[in-house]
Structure formats: structure tokens, C-alpha cells
């Protein structure tokens, strides 16, 4: 694939009519666009698609909506309309093969914008993962709303043909199919046999019958096969694109736009602070200015003199973010850990980790403190105390903990109730209000933001201005994306 073709300097017009090029609302983006477009449109299309993808991200994570649920689709379509992205709303609402000029125009924009973003998001593994995860959500949503006949056309256009298993074969395994699939009328369904890696999302959630490496799926689960195909295609294309970055970047007009695209939307990442917080004050700070996730880690550390890896990472980076120096940090962890272990063991096994958090070891990257999103989505296993307490605590545990702190039972009830409903960050904001005895109603999306807001209130309006990140330098290190499993919606 020659990526030069997408640059505006190429003059060849698209061959064939719009009808031939864009027969269907949904496409696999196999062929790159070859038309002329001006810089203005290039930029607009890119930004609009980033907006679209970020809307999708917000829907599943911040809003906690289930992928392809009714509320999800409704929310996304609503957002697209209010943001003025009517052509995307059009493509997502009823994917099909209508033939009006507006349809062709929408498909053209969708096509070009997708390829522009490939260039912007092929740069690092983290960006690629984010991009692929969002594009997959988009694809699935559009496939899910497609009508029957449009689906058939789509299969035909893309040369997809599968044959179903025989009735005999089906009868032999029907018992297992009933056991494994969440559907009622198994008897009337036709089943297809595909390799397990073609339907990984079904495997992951245990919603498919597997035998000998094959998955047996009904027609309605075909979206999994298609999205797996699409994912593979997309990942390969991104890999190829990244190898051609050099050629693209010869055009200076595009470089800064493409490089800054993802960053232009993300907020402060708290990886550097000006203020210095002495470790002696952590105990008192933890009572009021730490969000509950950090408070519980602090208490656990003081109590057990140990935290498992996930906890050390989450808490250690937070401490760095609020302004604990590396030397203080080392002393802090050492003092606690050496209560249960030899100094030598700490220095050998744990000090590295602390220095690592401050970018002094390993890849020497200045890691950013975790955002709420990341904390909420982090897997938490046996023995772990990290994570988001509103998500990773049993209701009764959460309630007892808060009551144990001596907060007003009514307020505690509200917090717990919010957490129970899955509004983790709103619960956190309510907790903030309770602790500070004020009704601020903050939108919390970062533990360090919680800390700063709290300090503002306590110090009486003295603004702790977070140092603005130099966006240009940070670009290569999208640390808050690192390690996060974007393939996995909530």
C-alpha cells in the first residue's frame, strides 16, 4: 500500500463513480482514497473523527454504558448531533446502501477521515491500541444497527462466504450449545464452525461453545468474526503505515497536525509538579485530601507494611504527582517495608520500583500518575488493594469503611448507592463533598485532580496551578495509555 497516495499532491481522480466506490455505508477500508483534498478539509475531517472516537470512549468508560446497548447507541447518536457531526450520525443510525448524494458524501468523508487517523495513530503501540479499540466499537455499532438485506449485501460485497454445519453435527452437540449460549431458540438456529481465534470476544466472555479449537456460532454472532477480520486488517495496515511515517513526515504541513492529534484532546497528566509535599504530612493529608482509593492504599501500607505490585504502582505514582520527591519516596517506602523485611531485600527488590516510577530506571520514562479511567479498568486480583474502591469493593465493605471513618450515615448511603449503580466517579465526587463538608459537585477524573481541588479548599482559595505540560515534548510518551487494555470495554 502506498501511503503517498493520500497526500494532497497526488492528482489522480478516483476511478469509477461514487456509486462504485462507496456502495455501502459500512466498509472495511481496504483501499486508500486517491482523491484531492485541501489542507483545510484534511484537518477538519481528522478532528471530527477524533471527536467521534472520543465520544465512543466516553460512552463505554466514563458513562459506563454497555457496548451496543440501547442507551449506548442513543448516547452516541445524540452526542454526534450536538457536536455537529451529522454525517457520522447518518452513517451510524441506519447503515445501509442508500444512494443519495448525502450518503455518498458521508461515506467519502468517513473513508478519508479513517485513513488520515491511521497516519496519526500508527506512531506508537499505545496509540495503535487505542485507535483499533475505538474503530472496532464504531464498526460493531454500525453493523449492529444494519438491517437484514443490507447485511447480505455487505457479505456479498466483501466476498464473505461461510457454510453452516449439518443437522447431524448440530444434534451431536446441541446439549453443549444450549449450555454455553445465552440464546433461547437454539433449535431453530443455523450454526457455523469457525476457529476460536476468529471470535475472541466471545471466547473472552465465555459466550460460545468451544471444541477442539473450533467455535460453534449462530448467524447473529457473526459480528465477532467480522470484527476480528477487521481488527487484523487494521492492525496490519497500521504496522505498514508506521513503517512509512518517514515519507509522510517530509510534508511539514501535516507533521504537527498528525502528531498532536491525540494529545490535543487529553488533559493534564500530572507527571510533573512544582509543589513539594513532605512525607511527614502524608498521614494528615490522607484523611482529607486523598481520594478514597489512595487513602485505603495509604492505610493498608501503614497497617501491613506492604503493598502488592499494582498498589505500589498506583500509590507511588500518585505520591509523585502530588509532589513527594524521589528521596522522600524512597525513605517512605523503605521505612514501611523494612518493618517486615531486611533492608537488603528492600533495596534489591523494591527500591528499583520506586526509582522506576520517577523515571530513573529501565526505559527511564517519566510515568504519569494513573487516571480514574485507568484505575477503574485495572484488573484487581486476590491480595490486591488497589483499584477504585467504588468499583472494587463489596457494597457492605465500602459502607462499613465509610461509616468507620465517622461520616454522616445519610451521605454514606448516597455514596454507596451511587457506587452500586456503577457511577464510580460521581460517588467519588460525593465522597469529596462529604469529606470537605461542602457542596462542590466536582467532576473527578484524576486522583491528583482530587488532591489539588481539596488543597484549594483547605488552603482557602490559594490556587495550586498545575504546571502546564509542554505538549510538543510529551507527544512520544502517552504514558497514561500505557499498559491499559483498550480492547476491553467495561
Amino acid at each position, binding site marked *: 500500500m502506498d501511503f503517498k497516495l493520500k497526500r494532497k499532491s497526488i492528482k489522480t481522480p478516483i476511478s469509477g463513480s461514487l456509486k462504485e466506490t462507496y456502495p455501502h455505508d459500512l466498509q472495511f477500508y481496504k483501499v486508500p482514497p486517491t482523491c484531492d483534498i485541501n489542507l483545510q478539509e484534511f484537518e477538519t475531517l481528522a478532528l471530527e473523527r477524533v471527536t467521534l472516537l472520543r465520544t465512543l470512549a466516553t460512552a463505554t468508560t466514563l458513562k459506563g454504558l454497555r457496548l451496543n446497548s440501547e442507551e449506548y447507541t442513543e448516547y452516541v447518536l445524540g452526542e454526534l448531533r450536538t457536536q455537529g457531526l451529522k454525517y457520522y450520525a447518518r452513517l451510524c443510525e441506519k447503515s445501509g446502501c442508500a444512494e443519495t448524494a448525502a450518503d455518498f458524501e458521508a461515506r467519502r468523508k468517513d473513508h478519508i477521515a479513517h485513513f488520515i487517523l491511521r497516519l496519526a495513530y500508527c506512531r506508537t503501540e499505545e496509540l495503535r491500541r487505542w485507535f483499533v479499540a475505538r474503530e472496532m466499537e464504531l464498526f460493531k455499532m454500525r453493523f449492529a444497527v444494519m438491517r437484514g438485506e443490507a447485511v447480505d449485501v455487505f457479505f456479498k460485497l466483501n466476498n464473505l462466504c461461510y457454510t453452516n454445519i449439518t443437522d447431524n453435527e448440530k444434534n451431536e452437540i446441541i446439549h*453443549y450449545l*444450549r*449450555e*454455553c449460549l*445465552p440464546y433461547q431458540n437454539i433449535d431453530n438456529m443455523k450454526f457455523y464452525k469457525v*476457529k*476460536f*481465534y476468529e471470535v*475472541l*470476544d466471545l*471466547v*473472552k*466472555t*465465555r459466550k460460545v*461453545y*468451544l*471444541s*477442539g*479449537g*473450533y467455535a460453534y456460532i449462530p448467524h447473529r454472532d457473526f459480528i465477532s468474526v467480522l470484527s476480528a477480520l477487521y*481488527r487484523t486488517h487494521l*492492525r496490519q495496515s497500521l504496522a505498514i503505515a508506521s513503517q512509512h511515517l518517514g515519507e509522510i513526515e517530509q510534508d511539514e504541513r501535516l507533521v504537527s497536525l498528525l502528531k498532536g492529534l491525540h494529545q490535543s484532546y487529553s488533559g493534564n497528566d500530572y507527571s510533573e509538579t512544582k509543589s513539594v509535599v513532605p512525607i511527614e504530612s502524608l498521614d494528615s493529608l490522607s484523611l482529607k485530601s486523598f481520594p478514597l482509593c489512595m487513602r*485505603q492504599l495509604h492505610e493498608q501500607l501503614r497497617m501491613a507494611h506492604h503493598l502488592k505490585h499494582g498498589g505500589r504502582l498506583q500509590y507511588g505514582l500518585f505520591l509523585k504527582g502530588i509532589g513527594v520527591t524521589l528521596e522522600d519516596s524512597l525513605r517512605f517506602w523503605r521505612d514501611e517495608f523494612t518493618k517486615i523485611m531486611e533492608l537488603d531485600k528492600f533495596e*534489591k527488590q523494591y527500591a528499583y520500583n520506586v526509582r522506576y516510577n520517577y523515571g530513573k530506571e529501565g526505559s527511564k520514562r517519566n510515568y504519569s500518575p494513573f487516571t480514574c479511567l485507568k484505575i477503574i479498568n485495572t*484488573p*484487581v*486480583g*486476590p*491480595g*490486591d*488493594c*488497589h*483499584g477504585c*474502591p467504588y468499583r*472494587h*469493593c*463489596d457494597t457492605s*465493605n*465500602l459502607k462499613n469503611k465509610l461509616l468507620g471513618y465517622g461520616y454522616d450515615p445519610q451521605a454514606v448511603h448516597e455514596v454507596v448507592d451511587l457506587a452500586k449503580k456503577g457511577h464510580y466517579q460521581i460517588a467519588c465526587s460525593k465522597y469529596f463533598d462529604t469529606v470537605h463538608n461542602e457542596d462542590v459537585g466536582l467532576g473527578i477524573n484524576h486522583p491528583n485532580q482530587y488532591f489539588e481541588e481539596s488543597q484549594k479548599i483547605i488552603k482557602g482559595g490559594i490556587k495550586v496551578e498545575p504546571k502546564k505540560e509542554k505538549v510538543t515534548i510529551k507527544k512520544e510518551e502517552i504514558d497514561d495509555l500505557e499498559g491499559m*487494555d483498550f*480492547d*476491553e470495554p467495561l
Partner: protein
Amino acid sequence: MVGQHDENLLSDMLPIYYTRLFPQNIFCRWLTCGSYPHPVSNRELSFTLADDVYIRYLSINNQKDFQTLLQKKIPHKLDIGGVYNTKPSIARHDSVVLARELVFDIDLTDYDEIRTCCQEAKVCEKCWKFMVIACEIIDKALRDDFGFQNILWVFSGRRGIHCWVSDYEARTLDSPGRGAIADYMCLIMGGDNQNKKVNLGSDNIHTSIRRALNIIDQYFEQLLEEQGFISTADRLQTFLKIMPDENLKSQTEKVLAKMSEASLDRWKAFLNIYNNYYRENSNSSRKIKYLIEEIKIQYCYPRLDVNVTKGFNHLLKSPFSIHPKTGKVCVVFKPGNAKNMKLDEVPTIYSLLDDSSPDNAQHQVNMRVAVKNFQEVVFSLEKTEAMRRRNDANTSLDF
């Protein structure tokens, strides 16, 4: 030979162990076959030397190289990484991992909240049963559900087991694929703040979970007795916290607290209470429909370190490496034989190299058996690989 471990002796003994006892030939064949179609030199090895000095990105071209490298560095621990697009030692900045066995790591420390006989680094015959169950369940799922055939099981040297799947499909599986398999196998979720860690919902129980439960049932009562899961007041409280239904919980507490401490009796009494309660309370039955199954899983089901499985390039201790803390050999065992494995019968570097050790003869035999187990897996891997390549060649000729 428990208690005779001395790390200082290792540096003297390891060169002899690597030359005389380490199955170098079979090991290299395993790596070569598992790296195909890339040369074995693209495979990353990593050594931990004395005093925890750590070297990554090593590689070997053949067995001779390997022997030389071992003798030069005398690693206290030997880890295996992924297969890169180039030799891992050069051009590190743009090298990528192309293939890697699908691996599983199960460690008894993850069972600390349920096992009562030992904690942390300790391990005994009683808690080894958890590993037996884990091995059986995972091996079965890998074979039956995913159709994998070339599966190597290795004792990790102290308190856990490793599993290496070398089938071509498994080796070339991408990260999401590994993640999906790990999640498919993982039933226990949640940290210290979540008491009930298993949720099966109220629909049918998936075939693979049914099968796992059948395996658990073979051991459950024995484990219950040996571990005394619900014998003391504390353990009973932990057990009660799993119950999602307050009434059932208080009923159970009332009866069980008065009984004798024998866990099995208490369990049977609980089953009675549960059955009656379930029959009489249809409105809360959805929530507790599979409570018994959920409890069994929480207490017995394998607790995987999913990050090891999900990562494409997680280093994992090599078979027949010596565990630097225990001196034990990371022996290969047959999954069907896990239940007969005795921890003090695992050969150590000391018992193997010291003729006067009382265990010497027996451990020599056990070591040979372990090597033979390894050979069997490698032979079968080589056979399937050869067949696969022939088939691939045929299909490509058809075009």
C-alpha cells in the same frame, strides 16, 4: 534434603549440573522447534547470575553455543523469552516479538487467602493439591476446548507450576488472543475488598465450567477437611461473607457456629440449609442459584497470574533451571501424574550431585523420568510441526 540449601555452593555446583544433568540436547530441540520458522538464535534467553545480576537479550545458535554460554556465565536462574524478528542482542530499538509459547503461571501465594496450612513461600503436600486441581483443569481446557496438543507442564521449583503450549496456533497467537484465553480460564476476580469473587450469573453453567466443577468435586471434600476451610470462627466468618443473601447468611451462621469444628460436617449442614432455603425462597433464588458452585470455585479453581499469559514477552523460568532459593530442579511432569507428585521427591542440585546423599539414587531416577517426560513432549511437538509444514507445503502447491 530440605534445609540443606546453601546458595553459596551453587556457583561451584552449577557448571557440573549444566554439563552432566541439564538435558541440553532436548532443550535446544524444544527451543528450535518452538521458534520455527525463525531461527533459534532469534529467541531471547535471560540469565540471573549470582547476586541477582540480571542479563537479558541473550541468544544461542546451537547446543554448542549454549554449553559455552552456560559455562561462561553460570546462571543461577534461566529464563526464556519470545522469538524476535532479529537476534535479540542486536538492533534492540526496532525489534519485535513475533512468536512465543502460550504460557500459564500458577503460584500458591495467590491462594494465601484460602489455604490454611501454609502461607507465602511455604508449601506442603496439603496445599499442593490446589496445584493438582489447577493442572488438571487447565490441561483439559487447553486440549478439549482449544484443541492444543503440545503442552508442557513444569514445576516452578518452589510453590507453583508453569504450563507451556507450543502448538503453532498458540505460539503465533496475538495479545488479544492470549488475553481472551486467559479471561476464558479466569473465574476468580476481585481484590481483598471483594469477598465474593466468583459470579456465575443465573443462566446455564458453561460446559467448560461444568467440567472444571467435576474435577473439583473429586478433591473438594478432601481439601475441605485437610484445609478446614470453615472450621474456626474466623474462617467461618470469611465463608459467611461470600453469601449474597442476608437471611441465608444468618441462618447458616446460627447453625454452623454451634456445631463441632469439622469442616466437612459443617459443609454438609450448610448444603441442607441452602437446599431448603433455595426451595422456599424463589424470589431471591436468582442471586444464589449457583452459590454452591461459586463457593467451590472460589476455594478450589486455579488462580492464574493472567499478566503472564497475556503478555507476549513475559520471561518465564526455563524447564530444568535450578530454583535459586530451594535448589530444586524445575522438573517436567505429566499432567495426569501431578497428583502422585511428592515435593520432597523433586530432585535438588545437591541430592543429584552428592553421591553420599541418602536421596541420591532415587532423585537420579526421578530426574531421568523428568527428562523422559520432556523428551516425549518435544518428540510429539517435532512430529506435529513436521506434519503441519508438509500440509502447508501441499496447500501452497495447490495454488
